[in-house]
């Protein structure tokens, strides 16, 4: 497999790009694997990469019902940050941030992790109190996050409207400078290429029909459209479809799947230097390297697998954006799309072992799954390899819904993820 570099690019350019090799083969399933990962998104492919690279487990298959990276990995607004309130979340997301910073080199694939800063706007006294609580907690956790006055916020993001006349006046902002965005497709492709290079099979267009358990209740493998595949360890990383897959193993999950919409504008020259999130008005925005304004919206009110989503939500989101950034009123929406996000009751993930022997799960990221991709993948790989919780993913158990030991970022702060 060709090593990527400016040199190899030049070399291949001169030979008319005829000699590039496949980034990953399209594999057919073998009869048995040590580990099967259901779902070839960034999370699933990432887990395979780390299993192979850090635990020497290469007899691994990543199986997807469609094309790799075709789910939420390729459908999100690529916001990456780690300024969460609770220690459990802060550790996990900050671990991910550490991995993001070296990911391009780690994968020899430019995922374009762009440390341009994520700014969250406070519009009410309650926002201010809650953001301050985050900033202080982050500081004592060693997580970067600082308070900006509204003038400082305007200076950091010139298109921002800080007029006190605004319906939701900006009272200040929390800024995580180390946060930013990355190129979503490159994350899936980079992990896929790296995992494949290490011997992982990537099996696309092969729906998993059921997880088969043996008489002792332990996992035996998965029934797929291409037949039964044996494996003593199965990890489900299927985002919106997780509860459907887990059900086949007899596990009912505290999950609901909602449609989430996002949109981009026509491309324009650089005008928007950072990422801005506003939870009071429900909108997220950044500008892609291609020049498009990338705008995230909230979820529709009802559960759905349709990936359609309604117009009213888009109207509200765009209104929110033009309310905060009036200069964009004459910009045009180029394309909008929908994804399916799986949401837990406390809006935090479920990551690690399950009551079923040999069955692992990585789900419940709601609207925040992209930012944690390497962190979730890295710790899940550990848990799969050692069959024990990683210190960082240990709190994110299913059990917490029985004991009530929730990790409720939303309830604590009404901060959207």
């Amino acid at each position, binding site marked *: 497999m060709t090593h990527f570099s400016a040199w190899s690019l030049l070399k291949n350019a001169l030979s008319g790009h005829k000699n590039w090799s496949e980034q990953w083969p399209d594999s057919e399933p073998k009869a048995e694997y040590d580990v099967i990962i259901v779902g070839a998104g960034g999370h699933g492919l990432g887990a395979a990469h780390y299993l192979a690279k850090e635990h020497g487990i290469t007899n691994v298959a990543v199986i997807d019902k469609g094309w790799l990276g075709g789910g939420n990995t390729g459908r999100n607004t690529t916001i990456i940050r780690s300024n969460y309130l609770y220690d459990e979340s802060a550790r996990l997301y900050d671990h991910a941030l550490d991995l993001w910073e070296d990911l391009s080199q780690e994968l020899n694939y430019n995922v374009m992790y762009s440390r341009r800063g994520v700014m969250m706007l406070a519009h009410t006294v309650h926002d201010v109190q809650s953001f301050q609580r985050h900033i202080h907690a982050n500081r004592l956790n060693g997580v970067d996050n600082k308070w900006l006055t509204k003038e400082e916020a305007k200076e950091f993001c010139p298109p921002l409207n800080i007029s006190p006349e605004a319906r939701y006046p900006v009272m200040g902002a929390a800024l995580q400078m180390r946060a930013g965005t990355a190129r979503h497709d490159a994350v899936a492709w980079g992990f896929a290429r790296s995992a494949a290079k290490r011997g992982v099979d990537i099996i696309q267009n092969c729906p998993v029909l059921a997880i088969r358990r043996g008489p002792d209740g332990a996992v035996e493998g998965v029934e797929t459209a291409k037949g039964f595949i044996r494996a003593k360890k199965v990890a489900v990383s299927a985002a919106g*479809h997780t*509860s*459907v897959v887990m059900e086949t193993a007899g596990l*009912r*999950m*505290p*999950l*609901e*799947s909602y449609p989430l919409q996002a949109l981009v504008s026509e491309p324009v020259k650089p005008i928007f230097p950072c990422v801005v999130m506003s939870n009071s008005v429900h909108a997220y925005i950044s500008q892609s390297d291609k020049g498009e304004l990338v705008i995230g919206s909230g979820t529709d*009110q*009802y*559960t*759905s*697998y*349709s990936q*359609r989503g*309604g*117009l*009213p939500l888009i109207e509200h989101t765009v209104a929110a954006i033009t309310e905060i950034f009036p200069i964009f009123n004459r910009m045009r929406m180029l394309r909008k799309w929908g994804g399916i996000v*799986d949401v837990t*009751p406390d809006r935090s993930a479920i990551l690690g072992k399950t009551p079923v022997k040999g069955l692992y799960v990585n789900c419940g990221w709601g609207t925040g799954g992209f930012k944690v991709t390497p962190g979730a993948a890295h710790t899940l790989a550990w848990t799969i390899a050692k069959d024990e919780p990683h210190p960082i993913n240990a709190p994110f158990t299913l059990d917490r*819904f*029985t*004991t009530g030991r929730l990790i409720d970022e939303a309830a604590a702060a009404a901060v959207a993820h």
Partner: protein
Amino acid sequence: MLLIRCPYCEETLPEMEFTYAGEAHIVRPENPSDMSDEAWRDFLFIRSNVKGPHFERWRHSHGCARFFNAVRDTVSDRFLTTYKAGEPRPDLASLLSAAGQSESEK
């Protein structure tokens, strides 16, 4: 934006008048205090999250203000039926065959 038939108003109306209210037929037990932690967890949190016909609740919040039940296909978002709170689960098979016919008529 969905179209929803309110079983109380007996009109088919825009989603804008309604509020989604989660999975249906999850009954709050008579004596919660007698329940195990697991059973209480199931009541509070475990949802079927069906991909397909889903029994769910809506409230006609900008209309008659009633909570009612519905069966909606979560893949097409099409409602198979709606019915009043307290009425039994309709038979899924017959709903689906009925829906199948209307589909084939197109």
